[in-house]
C-alpha cells in the first residue's frame, strides 16, 4: 500500500539498471519513459564505457500507452545490437509496459538467435525497490542465460555481495573479498567491475559453491542457483569489517571449503599482526580525544547497519544505540537479521528498527540520550540532524553527497582501517 516515503533512501526496481551497468560491457535497454535512466543514475561515477544517458530506451509516449510499445521495443533492441558494442544486452521493463501489458518477454525471445545474448528482467517501479530489482537482474541471468555445467572447478567460488552503485563501496568491497579468498587458497569469481564481465558470468556454473556476503539481498538468487545449477551456497550475513569479523569470516569460509585450519590461521595471524600494529599506534587517538563518544547509530541498509555495528562494537569497543535499517527488508528476513544484532561481544545487543520513514528515525535519534556527542553513520539526509545534535557524522549510505569514493572500501582488515580513518578524520576536524 502507498506510504509516506519521507527522505527516501532507495530507488525503484528499475534502478537495477545500475546492476547491469556494473557488469563490464553489459548494457541495459530500457522499455520505459524517456527520463527514467536519468533519474535513477547517480550524478558522479557514471561516465564509464556505458553511461545512463546512452542506455537505449524506448522512450514511451502517449501513443505507446494506448497502442502498446512492443514494436518500438523490437526496433530499439534490433538497432541497439547494431549501434552499441556490448557483450550482453539486458532489457529492463518499467512501469508503463507492465501496466498496459506489453509482452516484453515475447519480443526479447525474437532475439534468441542474435550474435550477442539478449535477456530481460521485469523491473517495474511498483514491483519493489532497487534491492529487489538487483535480485531480478541476477535471476534473469540465471534463468535465461546460465546452463548447468558438466564439470566443477575445485576451489572456484562465486562471491555475491550487495547492490552496485547503491552501495558506495561496491567495487572496493568485492575486490577485497576476492583478495581474502585468494589468500586462503580459493579462486574467487565475481561479475562486477573492472576486468570482469561475460567470461565471469560464463564461469558461474563451474563454481564449487556460491558465497553470499549480505544479510538478505540475493538469498533468493542463491536458492535459484542451487536448484537450477546445483551449486550449494554459504550465506555469511555480515559484511566483515575489521579484524574481529574478518577473522571469523575467513574461518567460516575456510571450514566450509575444507581448507586446512593452519593455512587459514596463518593468513589471519599475518593480517591481525599488521592491523594491531596500526591500532596500537593510534590507540592514543581513540582513547584520548574529546569528541568521539561511545554511543553510535547507523542509518543504512541491512548490510552496513549490521557490518558497522559489529565492527564498532567488537573491534573499537563502542556501544550501539538504536540502529536503523532503511532498505525495506522483506519481512521474511527480518527476524534473522534482528538476531544477528544480538550476537555482540560481552553479551551486548543492539536494538534495531526496520524503518523507511526518515521523519520517525530522526525523531527517535533526537529523543535518545547518547550521553555525549552522538556518532551518526548514515546518508546525506542525516547530516543536518547530526549538526543540530552537535554529533559526528559520516556519509556511508545512499544518498551520498559528502564523500567521493572511486575504489575505497570498508570490507576486510584494510576496510576496517579505512573506516577508522574516516571516522577520526571527522573527529580531528573539530576539536580533538
Amino acid at each position: 500500500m502507498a506510504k509516506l516515503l519521507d527522505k527516501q533512501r532507495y530507488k525503484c526496481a528499475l534502478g537495477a539498471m545500475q546492476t547491469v551497468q556494473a557488469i563490464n560491457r553489459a548494457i541495459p535497454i530500457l522499455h520505459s519513459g524517456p527520463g527514467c535512466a536519468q533519474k535513477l543514475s547517480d550524478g558522479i561515477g557514471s561516465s564509464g564505457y556505458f553511461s545512463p544517458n546512452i542506455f537505449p530506451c524506448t522512450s514511451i509516449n502517449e501513443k505507446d500507452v494506448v497502442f502498446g510499445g512492443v514494436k518500438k521495443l523490437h526496433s530499439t533492441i534490433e538497432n541497439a545490437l547494431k549501434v552499441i558494442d556490448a557483450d550482453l544486452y539486458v532489457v529492463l521493463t518499467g512501469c508503463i509496459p507492465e501496466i498496459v501489458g506489453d509482452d516484453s518477454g515475447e519480443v526479447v525471445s525474437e532475439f534468441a538467435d542474435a550474435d550477442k545474448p539478449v535477456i530481460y528482467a521485469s523491473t517495474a517501479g511498483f514491483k519493489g525497490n532497487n534491492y529487489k530489482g538487483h535480485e531480478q537482474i541476477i535471476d534473469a541471468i540465471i534463468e535465461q542465460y546460465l546452463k548447468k555445467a558438466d564439470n566443477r572447478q575445485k576451489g572456484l567460488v562465486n562471491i555475491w555481495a550487495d547492490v552496485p552503485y547503491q552501495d558506495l563501496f561496491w567495487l572496493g568491497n568485492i575486490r577485497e573479498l576476492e583478495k581474502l579468498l585468494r589468500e586462503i587458497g580459493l579462486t574467487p569469481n565475481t561479475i562486477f567491475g573492472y576486468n570482469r564481465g561475460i567470461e565471469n558470468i560464463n564461469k558461474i556454473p563451474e563454481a564449487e559453491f556460491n558465497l553470499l556476503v549480505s544479510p538478505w539481498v540475493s538469498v533468493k538468487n542463491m536458492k535459484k542457483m542451487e536448484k537450477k545449477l546445483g551449486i550449494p551456497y554459504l550465506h555469511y550475513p555480515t559484511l566483515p569489517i575489521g579484524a574481529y569479523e574478518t577473522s571469523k569470516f575467513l574461518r567460516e569460509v575456510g571450514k566450509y571449503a575444507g581448507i586446512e585450519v593452519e593455512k587459514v590461521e596463518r593468513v589471519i595471524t599475518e593480517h591481525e599482526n599488521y592491523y594491531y600494529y596500526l591500532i596500537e599506534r593510534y590507540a592514543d587517538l581513540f582513547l584520548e580525544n574529546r569528541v568521539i563518544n561511545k554511543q553510535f547509530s547507523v542509518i543504512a541498509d541491512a548490510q552496513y547497519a549490521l557490518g558497522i555495528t559489529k565492527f564498532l562494537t567488537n573491534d573499537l569497543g563502542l556501544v550501539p544505540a538504536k540502529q536503523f535499517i532503511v532498505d525495506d527488508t522483506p519481512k521474511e528476513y527480518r527476524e534473522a537479521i534482528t538476531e544477528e544484532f544480538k550476537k555482540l561481544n560481552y553479551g551486548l545487543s543492539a536494538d534495531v528498527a526496520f524503518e523507511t520513514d526518515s521523519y520517525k528515525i530522526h525523531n527517535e535519534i533526537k529523543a535518545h540520550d547518547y550521553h555525549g556527542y552522538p556518532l551518526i553513520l548514515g546518508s546525506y539526509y542525516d547530516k543536518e540532524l547530526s549538526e543540530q545534535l552537535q554529533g559526528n557524522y559520516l556519509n556511508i549510505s545512499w544518498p551520498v553527497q559528502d564523500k567521493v569514493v572511486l575504489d575505497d572500501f570498508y570490507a576486510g582488515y584494510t576496510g576496517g582501517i579505512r573506516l577508522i580513518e574516516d571516522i577520526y578524520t571527522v573527529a580531528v576536524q573539530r576539536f580533538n
Partner: protein
Amino acid sequence: METNLSNSNVATRENRIGSITGYIGSLKELASQSECGTLKGCSRCFSQSSSCLSSCALGQLSAIRDVAIIHHGPAGCSVASAGAYYLDKVMAKKRGVTNDTVYVGTDMNENDTIFGSTESLRKIILEVNKRYSPKAIFVTSSCATGIIGEDIDSVVDEVKEEIDVPVVSVHCEGFKSRIWATGFDIADHAVLSSIVKPPKEKNNKINFKNFYESARPEIIEIFKNFDLEPVFLYCNSTVEELSHISESLATTCICGTLGNYLGNVLEEKYGVPYIRSINQCGITGFETWLREIGKVTGRSDKVEKYIEEQRAIYIPQIEEVKKELKGLRAVIGMGPGYTFEVSRVLNELGIEVVWALAWHYDKKYENGDVPPSMKYLLDNHIDFEASVADQQNFEVMNILNKYQPDLYLSRHPGSTVWAIKNGTPAVYVADEYMIFGYKHTLEFAHAILNSIHNRSFEQNLAKRVKLPYTDWWYQQNVGTFLEEAKN
C-alpha cells in the same frame, strides 16, 4: 490561445507551440519552415535515454522555499527528492537563508496499481502538512498513477478544506510529452494558478526567471543603476514573494525555454510586460536585453549610460582575446533556449559553428513569434548545419567523429565526457550565467582558450578508452533512425 488557469492541466509544448524533437538540415530551412508552418518533426525508431518532464517541473517547484512536494508514484519517480534535498540545502546556504522544503514519495506498489491509492494519498497529504506546516503543497502524478487514472484532482479538492495553505495538483506523467521542457510550463502553471495573486500596487521589481541565481549579487548591483530590483525565480523564492510577482514592472528570463510560459501568462493575465529580446549571453545579447528593459520600464537614459561605461572596460579586453579564438570550429549541443543564443555568441567571438544540436525546438513562442534568438541568426545571415536531437548522444558522437571540431560545448550533465572520450575538448556551459553580460562573456572566452590550450586530460583519456559505438554506426548518416512523423 488564452491560458486557462482554472484547469490543472497544461497542454504539451507539441500541442501548444508546435515543438519537435527530430530534425536535420540547415538552420535557415528550420527557421523558414517554422515561419511558414510547414515544419514537421521526426520521431526515432532507435533512441537513447533522455529526460523526464517531471524532473523539470519538480526541480523548479522543489527549489521554492518551505513548500512540500508529494510525488505520487513508485520510488523511482520520487528519487529526484534526494537531489532536490541536497540542492535546496546548498543553494540556501550559499545565499545565507534556510530552506525547509520537503519532497516525499508515496512508494506505490503493485496493489496500488490495481486498486488505486487515493485514500492513502489523502492521508499522506494531511500527514505531511501536520509534520512540516509547509507554505504550499504540490501533489504530483507519475506515469503509473496517470495510466491507472488515479484522480489526484479530487483528492486535492477534498483536502483543501482541511489545509489552510495552497494545495495544488501538478500533472507530471512522463509519457505525456517528448519535450521535457513542458515540465517548466507545468511548474509555472502550478505557481500561476495557485500562488500568484492579482496585483494590488505596482513596485519597481523585475521578475527574473532563472535556475540557480548564481549571478544574483551582481545583477542586484546592475539593476541599482536603473532603480530596479530583481526578483529571482524559483530557486530560494518564498511563497509570499511569488504571490506578488504580478505587481512587478516586467518579467525577464535567462533562458526562453525556461521562462516563456510564465512571462506570457503574467503579461496576458496581469499586464506585466514580458521582455522578449534575445538573451543576455554575449555583447549584443546583453545590450539588446538591457535596452529592452530600459524601454519597457522607461529607463533608457540610465541604461545607455551604463552600457557606455561597461563597454569601455570590457570591449577592449574581449577584442584582445578574440584574436586567439578566431578560426576555431565548434559543435554545440544544448536546449533550444541556449543553442541558438550561444551560437550567436560564438559567432561574435569569431568561432565558427559547424553544427548545432538543439535538444528540442519550439516552432514559435506563446505569442506566435519565432524564438528571438533564431530570428536574430536569420536576420544576420548566420547559417550552419543544425539538428534537433533530444540529447541523443549517438547522434552527437556521429557528428563529432565526422567534423572533428576544435571544441564541443554542452549544457547537460553527462554530455561533455563523451566529447572528450572522442578527443574533442569540451566546455561545460553548466551555469546559466556563464556567458552573462560583458564580464562573463570575457570569462567564457578565456574558459574556451584554457580548454584549447591544455588538451592533456582529453588526450590522455581518449588514447586509452574504446568508444561504445560500433564502426557501423560511425559510417551511417546521422539521421538514419529518424522517421517521418506520423501525426
